[in-house]
């Protein structure tokens, strides 16, 4: 499966979160959540184990609620394809602090590696751009990942979208907490909200 010149997903996510400061990180269900966990547990990690297609919208709700803090959604191509309309919704709201990056292995890795639409003609960068997210780019080098990682700290210039073609190899799962209430209440606690 592994092809030359494709990025390593763990290296990409680790770079995105290396100097995250106060950023929230939302992971789509499946491998992107494991990648975020592999980069290190954090009280502002929003791990998803379900709700396929919802990662970008969760990021939008969080970004609108906390406009001074960066929010980065890190998801896969299959999850993004299921919630493609949310790119139009994001573009309409123009949240300056929201960044979205798709780790695109052109496959449904969690279910046996079936080819996804991005392995065919679908172009998510084109979709994001056409929806109205002006800063939409394809990423193919670690230097571009680094540039994206520093740009996501700028909460005045989003929304931004990127798609990085990554190596399709299935890596060892790094399991985060699966307790949604714990995950959400921990995020709320990190910004000073007490339980009801």
């Amino acid at each position: 499966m592994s092809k030359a010149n494709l990025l390593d997903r763990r290296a990409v996510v680790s770079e995105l979160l290396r100097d995250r400061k106060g950023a929230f990180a939302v992971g789509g269900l499946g491998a992107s959540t494991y990648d975020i966990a592999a980069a290190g547990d954090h009280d502002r990690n929003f791990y998803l184990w379900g709700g396929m297609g919802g990662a970008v919208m969760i990021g939008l709700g969080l970004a609108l609620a906390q406009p001074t803090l960066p929010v980065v959604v890190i998801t896969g191509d299959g999850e993004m394809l299921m919630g493609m309309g949310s790119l139009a919704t994001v573009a309409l709201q123009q949240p300056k602090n929201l960044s979205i990056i798709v780790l695109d292995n052109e496959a449904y890795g969690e279910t046996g590696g079936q080819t996804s639409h991005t392995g065919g003609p679908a172009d998510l960068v084109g979709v994001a751009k056409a929806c109205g997210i002006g800063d939409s780019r394809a990423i193919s080098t670690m230097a571009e990942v680094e540039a994206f990682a520093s740009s996501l700290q700028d909460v005045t210039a989003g929304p931004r979208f990127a798609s990085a073609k990554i190596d399709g190899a299935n890596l060892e799962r790094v399991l985060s907490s699966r307790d949604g209430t714990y995950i959400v209440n921990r995020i709320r606690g990190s910004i000073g909200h007490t339980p009801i």
Partner: protein
Amino acid sequence: MHARTDTAASWPEEIFSILQRFEVRQVPYVPDAGHSELIERVLGSSSMRGIALTTEEEGVALLAGAWAGGQRGVLLMQSSGVGNCINMLSLVQIFRLPFLTLVTMRGEWGEFNPWQVPMGSNTQGILELAGIKVLRASRPDEVREVVEAGAAQAYNACTPTAVLLSQRLIGAKVFTK
């Protein structure tokens, strides 16, 4: 059968006041004629943000993010939209969200369009199967207390709640050539 009319419809204004009082900040919606007055009020408000969706399930996920970020929200949709939300409603239980949705009903009470009937007939059952308490308002004079009760139990007790606004209340849509 009532015709849809905008006259003397003060209940959308009452809903708006309740949402203000409960400090609702994010109002995702897929437009419906029955919600049009409330949507206009929200879009003109300085404290609330109306967020147009491409499909209703986006609103469920949005409200999960809003809650994580410390804000309350309410999802406005039509009965047919409830079917679009089913899997995403998992988030409501998983995150124990203070979830509130106001659903304008179609497919009942003098409906003209048969295509609205299958989903309209099952809206309440689907919401209940998804673990959401269902309240209903059918007359203008009961909207305030029903929405108030729904908002109170959703936001104060984290009890996910849907308030169905009956087609009898809104008036059946009149189709003319």
